[in-house]
């Protein structure tokens, strides 16, 4: 279950030297448009003097998020975003539609009905602090429905980075690079443990504070495949073949173009590649066909993209 930290509007704003009255006076009419909430690190019980104040206003009648606005209360940046008032209920309905598997690490959604943008709100709204006398955005049932989705998102990241680190190993990448990628995978395991324990604060820099709040025993990453396997077992995360759960496909935003009779792939960073692959399939198949070093180079230079295959994960977890 997601547990709300003991944060009030006064305590959240005090971190950046503001009072509720100052926020009201600065934003005024914006807050009258709907139900306003402070979200983000301050609402999560973290933040410091450099933090922005993030305000989300749930506006009745709105069908799409409005363009964010930046305000200032003295020197403090206040980001205001407006969202349709019905979105929280829609999120919970979507969350409830997902099947759930009970794993040692906790409940995990078998489907991922929320896109990456929706997940961002889903993980910010559980800790939302009302600016006025509004109820919490999610009740306890809603929070219970959301958590497996947030755990699943973390699991997908574990799969992705373990797959990438394995690829770097197979490609014979330099030792420091391989170590860095395995450390990244181990870090995502820690993120998964935090979420499974009900701590869903967003913002990667807050991970140590979250670990401390949960009093998790967190050993430093080893930067090795063996260390990752140990950490995965201790986290209660099932063993999967990451290369079968990750797909490879032509990179988004790339297009083939001809210049003076020569063909190039112009990738999304506007780099011209003289040769390229259009492979589509699992990472395991890509490595078998092209070789690990070639696949690693192709992902590195935005020639091919990798993504977690949701259906393959569902089958692996079910």
């Amino acid at each position, binding site marked *: 279950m997601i547990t709300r930290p003991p944060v009030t509007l006064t305590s959240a704003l005090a971190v950046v030297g503001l009072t509720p009255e100052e926020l009201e006076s600065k934003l005024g009419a914006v807050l009258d448009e709907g139900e306003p909430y402070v979200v983000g690190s301050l609402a999560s019980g973290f933040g*410091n*003097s*450099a*933090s*922005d104040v993030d305000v989300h206003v749930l506006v009745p009648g709105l069908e799409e998020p409005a363009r964010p606005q*930046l305000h*200032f209360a*003295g*020197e403090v*940046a206040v980001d205001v975003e407006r969202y349709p008032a019905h979105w929280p209920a829609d999120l919970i309905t979507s969350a409830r539609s997902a099947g759930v598997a009970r794993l040692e690490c906790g409940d995990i959604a078998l489907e991922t009905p929320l896109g990456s943008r929706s997940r961002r709100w889903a993980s910010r709204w559980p800790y939302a602090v009302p600016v006025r006398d509004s109820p919490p955005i999610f009740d306890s049932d809603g929070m219970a429905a959301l958590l497996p989705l947030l755990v699943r998102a973390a699991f997908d990241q574990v799969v*992705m*980075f373990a797959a*990438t680190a394995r690829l*770097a190993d197979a490609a014979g*990448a*330099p030792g*420091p*690079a*391989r*170590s*860095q*990628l395995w450390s*990244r995978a181990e870090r995502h395991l820690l993120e998964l443990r935090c979420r499974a324990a009900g701590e869903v604060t967003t913002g*990667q*820099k*807050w*991970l*140590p*504070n979250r*670990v*401390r709040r949960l009093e998790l025993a*967190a050993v*430093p*990453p080893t930067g090795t495949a063996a260390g990752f396997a140990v950490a995965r077992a201790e986290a209660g995360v099932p063993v999967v073949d990451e290369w079968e759960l990750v797909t490879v496909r032509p990179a988004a*935003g790339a297009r083939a173009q001809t210049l003076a009779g020569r063909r190039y792939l112009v990738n*999304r*960073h*506007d*780099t011209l590649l003289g040769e390229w692959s259009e492979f589509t399939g699992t990472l395991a198949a890509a490595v078998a066909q092209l070789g690990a070093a070639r696949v*690693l180079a192709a*992902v*590195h230079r*935005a020639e091919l*993209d*990798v993504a977690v295959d949701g259906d393959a994960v569902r089958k692996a977890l079910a």
Partner: protein
Amino acid sequence: MTEFDGTWVVTHGAHMAWRYARSVQPALADMRAALDAGNWALCVESCALALRAIVFCHHVGEGVSGSPTEVELQLLLALDERPAAVALRDLPWSVHANETDARAAVDAVERHDEELRAALPFDMPVIRTAGGYGPTVRVTATVGKWRADRGMGPVSWNREGL
């Protein structure tokens, strides 16, 4: 002797300065606030975000446009041999960081930030401050004029995070 290619300044150089303002400046502010608060773990985390942004800024200056995917960015950071990337990989484990770790990490960031700033064609104002909006508009307008002088269209500033 400072010298820049004019076309580079209004193309990759301008995007590099913009990326610096969008991604490096906020990480530096977070790093200093965490140091002042004695939150060593957060300080090391902020140093990691600053170094990551510094490395990517160098790539923008070399002509990389748009934003990388998360996997692509992590590969770039893992495989890059420039000193800022090596410093990133050498950061201590943040969760158990102490004051000595944090101060050493801040020193590394400040060294690489100084090196990066020397490579920027101009200083972009700190954009997320109360007084930053007007100067930012003036700088971007000047870049637009310089581009027009060279027969180029308006800049498409990348407003995505890193």
